C-alpha cells in the first residue's frame, strides 16, 4: 500500500518547512514535495506606504538577512529618485552587506549544518545542535560564535544595531563611518580569517571522508544565476546578472532592472513559495540554482586572492567543470565567507570609506524602481511602483530562497529515492532528507515565512489516506 511520510518542521533552517514523501506500495518513492506553508503578503500590504519607508519595512521580512532587504529596498529607492548614491555610500552599504554575509554563512555552517558534519547525521537528535556541538568541541563553538559576532558587529557599528538596522536611505546612507569603528573592524580581520580557514579544514576533512556522499548526495543538473563583475568574478552587492546553463555556458547577461524580461515565476498548489525560472526555456526546463553554489557556477572566478585559491581547490574537489552536488553548497558558502572577509579589508582600507559625502537628495523622478542584490542565499529582487507622491501602488518581491525552491524538491527526491528503498524508516534517514534542504540554507522567513510546528510525525497512510503506522521522533534522553 502507498504511504505518505511527513517531516515537519524541517529544523536548523531559517524558518519552517515540511517535506512529504509519497511512497508506493513497495515502499519505493513516488514523489517528494518541499512545502512552504505560510504567507505574509508583503506584496499587498506595503501598498499605500511611502517608498522611503520600505528599507525599514521590508527588512522585517527576514531577521537573518534583514540587511539584504534593507539595502535592496534602498537601491529600489535610488532608482525612484533617479540618482546614484555617492561612492562612499556604496562602499558603506557593501561593507554592511559583507558583515551580513559573514554572519549568515558562519551561522549556517557552524550552528545549523555543522552538527551534521561534525557530529554526524546519525548522532542523537538531542545532541545534534549548538549545545551538542559545544560539548563535542567547545573551542570550535566559541570560534563560530565569534565569527558570527564579527559580522553582526559590522552591521551594528553602521546601522546602530544588529537585527533590523537603520542605515541605508534612498540616495545613500545616513551615517559616516567613525575612525575608531574602522580600526576596530580591521583589527578583527586576521583572526576571523583563521576561523574561516578552520571551517574550511573541517569541511575538506569531512569531504575527503565522505567523498562518495559529496559526489552522489543530491546531485543533479540545472542552470545557475548570480551577480558578476566585469571580469565574471562573483559579486554580492552590485553588478550584472549572469545566467548560465547546466554546462556553465552563458545564456544571458542582464541588468537587474530588466529582470522581468528573463525571470518568470511558477506557482504550485501545494506551496506558498513560488518557483522562479528562466522565461525563454519555460517551466520547469528553465529552473536554475542560486546561492553560494549557484553563484560560483554562474561566475568564473572569485575577485579576491585567498578566495580564488580556495575556489580552484573547490573546483578540483568537485572534479572540475560544473559543481552539481548539493553538499558542495557548504563548501561554496565558506569560500564566499572568505571572500566577504577579504572584501571587508579592501573596503575598510579604501580612502573614501571615511568620507562624509553620503547622500544624494532628489525628488521623485521615476514612478518605478528595481533594486537587486546577492543575499547570502541568492539573488534578491525588489520592484516598486509609486504614484507622484511616492506612495506605493504596487510591489513585487522575488526572494533568494525562491529561486532554489525547485532544486530543493529535486534534491529531496534524489535523496529519498536512494534512502527510502522500502523497510523500516529510521530517524537518520529522515535527517538525511532534511540535510538536503539544509544544504540550500533556505531562508523561509524571506520566502513568506514559516508556519508553526506540527508534531513531528512520520505518518504512513494507506491509499484511502487511512493511517496505518505512526512513528514519533525519538524523545530526548533527559
Amino acid at each position, binding site marked *: 500500500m502507498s504511504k505518505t511520510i511527513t517531516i515537519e518542521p524541517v529544523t536548523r533552517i531559517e524558518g519552517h518547512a515540511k517535506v512529504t514523501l509519497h511512497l508506493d506500495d513497495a515502499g519505493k518513492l513516488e514523489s517528494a514535495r518541499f512545502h512552504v506553508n505560510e504567507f505574509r503578503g508583503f506584496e499587498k500590504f506595503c501598498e*499605500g506606504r*511611502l517608498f522611503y519607508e520600505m528599507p*525599514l519595512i521590508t527588512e522585517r521580512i527576514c531577521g537573518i538577512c534583514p540587511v539584504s532587504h534593507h539595502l535592496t529596498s534602498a537601491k529600489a529607492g535610488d532608482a525612484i529618485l533617479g540618482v546614484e548614491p555617492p561612492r562612499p555610500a556604496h562602499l558603506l552599504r557593501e561593507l554592511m552587506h559583507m558583515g551580513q554575509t559573514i554572519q549568515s554563512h558562519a551561522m549556517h555552517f557552524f550552528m545549523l549544518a555543522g552538527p551534521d558534519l561534525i557530529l554526524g547525521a546519525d548522532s542523537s537528535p538531542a545532541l545534534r545542535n549548538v549545545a551538542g556541538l559545544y560539548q563535542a568541541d567547545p573551542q570550535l563553538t566559541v570560534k563560530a560564535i565569534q565569527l558570527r559576532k564579527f559580522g553582526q558587529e559590522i552591521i551594528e557599528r553602521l546601522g546602530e544595531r544588529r537585527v533590523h538596522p537603520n542605515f541605508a536611505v534612498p540616495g545613500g546612507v*545616513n*551615517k559616516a563611518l567613525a575612525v575608531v569603528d574602522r580600526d576596530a573592524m580591521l583589527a578583527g580581520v586576521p583572526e576571523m580569517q583563521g576561523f574561516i580557514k578552520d571551517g574550511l579544514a573541517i569541511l575538506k576533512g569531512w569531504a575527503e571522508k565522505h567523498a562518495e556522499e559529496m559526489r552522489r548526495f543530491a546531485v543533479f543538473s540545472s542552470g545557475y544565476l548570480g551577480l558578476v563583475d566585469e571580469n565574471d568574478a562573483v559579486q554580492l552587492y552590485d553588478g550584472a546578472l549572469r545566467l548560465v546553463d547546466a554546462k556553465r555556458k552563458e545564456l544571458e547577461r542582464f541588468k537587474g532592472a530588466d529582470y522581468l524580461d528573463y525571470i518568470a515565476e511558477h506557482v504550485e498548489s501545494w506551496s506558498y513559495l513560488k518557483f522562479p525560472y528562466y522565461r525563454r526555456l519555460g517551466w520547469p526546463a528553465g529552473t536554475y540554482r542560486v546561492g553560494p553554489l549557484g553563484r560560483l557556477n554562474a561566475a568564473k572566478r572569485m575577485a579576491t586572492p585567498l578566495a580564488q585559491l580556495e575556489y580552484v581547490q573547490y573546483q578540483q574537489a568537485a572534479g572540475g567543470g560544473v559543481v552539481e552536488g548539493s553538499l558542495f553548497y557548504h563548501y561554496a558558502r565558506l569560500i564566499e565567507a572568505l571572500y566577504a572577509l577579504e572584501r571587508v579589508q579592501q573596503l575598510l582600507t579604501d580612502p573614501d570609506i571615511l568620507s562624509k559625502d*553620503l547622500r544624494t*537628495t532628489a*525628488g521623485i523622478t521615476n514612478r518605478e524602481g528595481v533594486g537587486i542584490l546577492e543575499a547570502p542565499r541568492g539573488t534578491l529582487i525588489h520592484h516598486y511602483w509609486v504614484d507622484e*507622491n511616492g*506612495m506605493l501602488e504596487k510591489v513585487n518581491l522575488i526572494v533568494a530562497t525562491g529561486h532554489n525552491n525547485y532544486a530543493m524538491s529535486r534534491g529531496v527526491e534524489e535523496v529519498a529515492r536512494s534512502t527510502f528503498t522500502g523497510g523500516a524508516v529510521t530517524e537518520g534517514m529522515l535527517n538525511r532528507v532534511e540535510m538536503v534542504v539544509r544544504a540550500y540554507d533556505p531562508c523561509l522567513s524571506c520566502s513568506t515565512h514559516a508556519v508553526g510546528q506540527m508534531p513531528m510525525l512520520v505518518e504512513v497512510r494507506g491509499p484511502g489516506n487511512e493511517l496505518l503506522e505512526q512513528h514519533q521522533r525519538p524523545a530526548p534522553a533527559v
Partner: protein
Amino acid sequence: MPLEMTTSAVAMANIVINGRRIQTLPGQTVLQAATAAGIKIPTLCHHPRLPAHGSCRLCLVEIEKQRALQPACTFPVSEGLVIRTDTEKLMVERRFALQMILSERSHYCMFCPASGTCENSDCELQRLCYDHGLNCWEYTPHYEKRWPVDGTRQYFVMDHGRCILCRRCIRACSSIAANHTLGVHQRGTHTLIGADDDVPFGRSSCVSCGSCLQVCPTGALSERNSAFAGRSADFKRTKAVCLGCAVGCGIEALVRDNHLARIEGDWEAANGGLLCAAGRFEVLQPRPPRIRTPLVREKGKLAAASWDRALDCVAQKFRKAERVACLASPRLLNESMAALTLFFNETMRTNEVALLYGEAPPLDLGAPAGLADVADSDCIVVIGGNPMEHQRVVGYLTRRSLDHGGKLVLVHNGSTSLDGYADLHLELEDISHPAASPFERLRATYHLRASSLTRLKHMVETAERPIVLYGSGLSTTVYVAMRTLPSRARFLPLIAGTNTRGAVRLGLSARPVNGEILYLMAADDLPDHAPLPTRQFTVVHAAYQSDWTDTADVVFPALMWAEKTGHVTNLEGKTLEVKPVMSAPADVLPAWKVLLQLSERVGRSLTYEDICTFAGSR
C-alpha cells in the same frame, strides 16, 4: 489668544506640591507652577508654545478638595491648593491613559521615523510608555482598519495611524501661523485631523510653513527629507539665521556628518519658531552641482585651475582694464559686501559697483517697528509690498494680528493672498515709464490719490498700535505722506533681497553698471532666467553651476549660506550674527578672502582690518 497663560503681576499665591511649599503667581497653571519649581509632571498634548488643551489626561494630578483628578496643564493655581503629582493612583491613571491612546490607532513603531530607545526616541508617546513601564498593549488596536496616509504635501507627510488627536498641529496652524487650515473632522472613533473641508493636505489652504510638523509629538507628521536620516540625538543642533529673505528668521539647523537634514524654527528668536516653506523646506531641496574649485576658460572650455592660476588670470585682466564693473548678490554678508565695496572703490578706483537686484525703500519714515510688534498691532497698513510672497513670516504675523481683532489696510495694485482679509483696500496708480532695462523696471513708481490717503490716515489715527509695512517704488509724495502719520505709527520696510539693508548701509544699490570687465558676486544665488549683460571678460564668483558660470571666463567657488560666517542686517535694521552650521568643501574660501588676495595681486592690497573698520564705520 495668548500662547501661554500670562502671569499678571498680582500678589503671590501659596500652594503645596508633593509636600513642598511653593509661591506662585495666580493665573499660572498648576503645570507652570510645578515646572517653575522644578517638579516634573508628564505631559503629551501640552506644548509650552501653544494654548493649553487638556485632552490627553497624562498630566492629571490629585488636588485636595477636588472630587476628580485634574489636568495640571489647564488647572489655574489659587491660594492654598494642596497638590500631589506622584501617587501610585496617578501612575495607574496615566498608564491607563497611555493604554487607551495606544488602542485607538495602529502605531507601527518599528518603521516610524520618530521611534527609538528610551535614550534617543523622538516620540513623546513612546518615551512616556517607556517611563511608565508599558511592556505590552492591554487593548489590541483594530489592525484591520487602515488609517490613511496623506502624502500629497511636497515636504512632509501625515500618517493618521500615528496620530493621537492631541491637536497640537491644529493649535500651531491657528495660533502660530494664523493659517487655520487644520481642524477636527467627524467624531468618536471616526475623528480625524483634516484640512479645510476635508481635502487632501496638498490641495488645501496649507502654506507648508511646517509649524504643525515642528510640534507633532509622534511620528504622525514626518518630513520626507529627514525621515530616517537620524533622530534628534544624532544631529548637531546649531542656532543660525535663515538667509532666505530680509526677515532673517532664527532657525535651528540639524546636521549629521556634515549633511544638513532638517531645519526648525528657533522658539527664542523674534519669529518665535515660525518659519515659511522657503526657509524650512526649500533650502533643503537639491541644488545644481556645486562649484568646488576655481575654473578658467581655456580654448573655449572651462577647466579646473588652482587658486593662484585663477587669481593671477583675473588680476592680470584687472590691471589692464579701463573700467571694471561689479554686480553683487544681496545674499552676501556684510563682511563680503564691505570687502567688495572697498576693493572696487579703493583698489580698482571705480564706482561701477551695484547690487544684482534688491530694493530698499526710505528707512527714516518714523519710529521703527520690530518683528515682534507686528502680531500685536491693532491696525496694519501694507503699502507697496507683498509680504505673503517676499517676507512670508511678516505676512503670517500680520494675519495673527487679525486673529486678535486687528484691522488691515491694503494698498497696492494687483492682488495678493492678503486681499481676503482687508478691511480697507486702496488702489495704487502706476505712474512709471515703460521700462528699459531690468534695473529701470525697479524704479517703477506708484502713486496714491489724496482721497485714498485721507482714508488711510483715518484708519491709522483710530488705532492704538498701528504699524505700516511699506515697500519700495512708491512716489515721493506717498513717502512724505507716511511721515505725517501720527507719531505712534511704527514702520517696518518690506525690503527685497536678503541683505539689501546691509548693502544700502555701505552705499550699494541696484542699478546698471558699465565696464568691459564684469565681476559677478553671485554667492549662492541662482539666476532665475536673468541673463548677464555680455562683457569682454566675465568673472563669476558662485557656489553653484548655472547659466552664469557656464558663460563666465573665470569662476571662483563661493560658500553657500550654511557655511558662512559674518553678519547680515535684516529688514528691522538689526545686525544678526551668521554662524556656519556645516563645513565648506576644502577648496572654497569666503568672498572677502578672495578679494584680499586679488587686491594683493593688483598691487594695492587691502587687509582684513580695513574691511572691518569700513564695515563698522557705516
